[in-house]
């Protein structure tokens, strides 16, 4: 039999939902119980602390215990509460300082008509700055951008490093990989740091390029570039081009991100 009957749509902008794909009902369902567990599980949080939350446009501030985990900003009645009062889902928002009656105020602003702006106030300047930084980088989209960027960088570094000579055996002891990589590092080439371990807390099904690349790396370390000297381990030519590459990536990512943020801001 289908789930419970029609649920009346409440006038308040905040929703309390159920989590079952039943018929009828106007309130969107959400797996709130799981959300509550995610809020209170024992993995490290990304930020936490007391903030004053403005109830509405003309409402008073309430002091709440805030917990940022991933792209979810939970708020509790107080620090000892077992279940959050609510959550602000942090996708597609901007975080900015605001002029407000309260000191150390900032806002989490969403785009779109009739979208809510959450005005929050910290207890001091340092806390405010910490929150603004943490919240503006909290979105899944932002994290995904950074991960993709690093994925490409790692592939580039590995490709640049792999110069297999034709007759070498395919498998190579991991410590020689360490030696090869040392060409790019500040340290002089040394017997490597030991076998490259699989990532300790394995990221699920390991990203394919990573696993494949490390297992099939053949060849000896490439010869040292002629200008490299022990006395200047970051040979100016190579360090400069490497830093330039990083700066270039950084600029590209920042440009991409602001373009994307701007396009998201349009309804």
């Amino acid at each position: 039999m289908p789930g419970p009957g029609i649920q009346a749509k409440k006038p308040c902008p905040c929703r309390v939902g159920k989590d079952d794909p039943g018929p009828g009902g106007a309130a969107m369902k959400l797996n709130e119980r799981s959300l509550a567990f995610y809020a209170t599980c024992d993995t490290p949080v990304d930020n936490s602390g007391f903030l004053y939350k403005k109830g509405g446009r003309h409402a008073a501030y309430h002091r709440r215990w805030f917990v940022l985990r991933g792209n979810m900003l939970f708020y509790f009645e107080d620090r000892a509460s077992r279940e959050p009062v609510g959550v602000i889902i942090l996708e597609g928002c901007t975080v900015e300082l605001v002029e407000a009656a309260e000191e150390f105020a900032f806002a989490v602003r969403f785009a779109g008509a009739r979208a809510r702006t959450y005005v929050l106030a910290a207890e001091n300047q340092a806390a405010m700055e910490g929150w603004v930084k943490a919240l503006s980088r909290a979105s899944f989209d932002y994290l995904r951008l950074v991960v993709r960027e690093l994925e490409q960088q790692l592939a580039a570094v590995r490709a640049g490093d792999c110069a297999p000579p034709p007759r070498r055996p395919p498998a190579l002891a991991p410590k020689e990989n360490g030696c090869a990589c040392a060409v790019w590092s500040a340290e002089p080439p040394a017997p490597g740091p030991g076998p490259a371990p699989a990532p300790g807390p394995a990221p699920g099904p390991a990203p394919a390029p990573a696993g494949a690349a490390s297992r099939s790396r053949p060849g000896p370390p490439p010869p040292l570039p002629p200008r490299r000297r022990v006395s200047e381990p970051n040979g100016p030519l190579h360090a400069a081009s490497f830093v330039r590459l990083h700066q270039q990536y950084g600029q590209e990512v920042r440009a991409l991100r602001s373009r994307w943020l701007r396009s998201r801001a349009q309804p």
Partner: protein
Amino acid sequence: MRYNEKELQALSRQPAELAAELGMRGPKKGSVLKRRLVKLVVNFLFYFRTDEAEPVGALLLERCRISQEEPSGFSICFMEDPERKYHFECCSEEQCQEWMGALRRASYEFMRRSLIFYRNEIQKMTGKDPLEQFGISEEARFQLGGLKA
């Protein structure tokens, strides 16, 4: 629990990682299989009635387990209550594998572990911290020490 439903609805309209019409059955005993348009956006799985623009509901994909259910389906359950399963029926084994892979990679926590892994690898290989260019190398959320089992 209060949440910003309007923003969640707006999120459901964003470009999806994956979207398809699947059979879906809720965790309650006696639930029947229904056709739903299922859409993966960031770490949310939205499900719509096939002819509606607003989602019926959403599942936050954190602390969940994706399991295969023979013959060509999968289920999602959450760590705090593994007996409660959301079932999905795909049209082929291939589609099923595609969804399972995507859903397993869809959590914020998985993304975070990937980032830490890549950061660590690049640092080992180059001696440089790739997060410095973004100005986020000190962020608590990206530290190796922050990882727990």
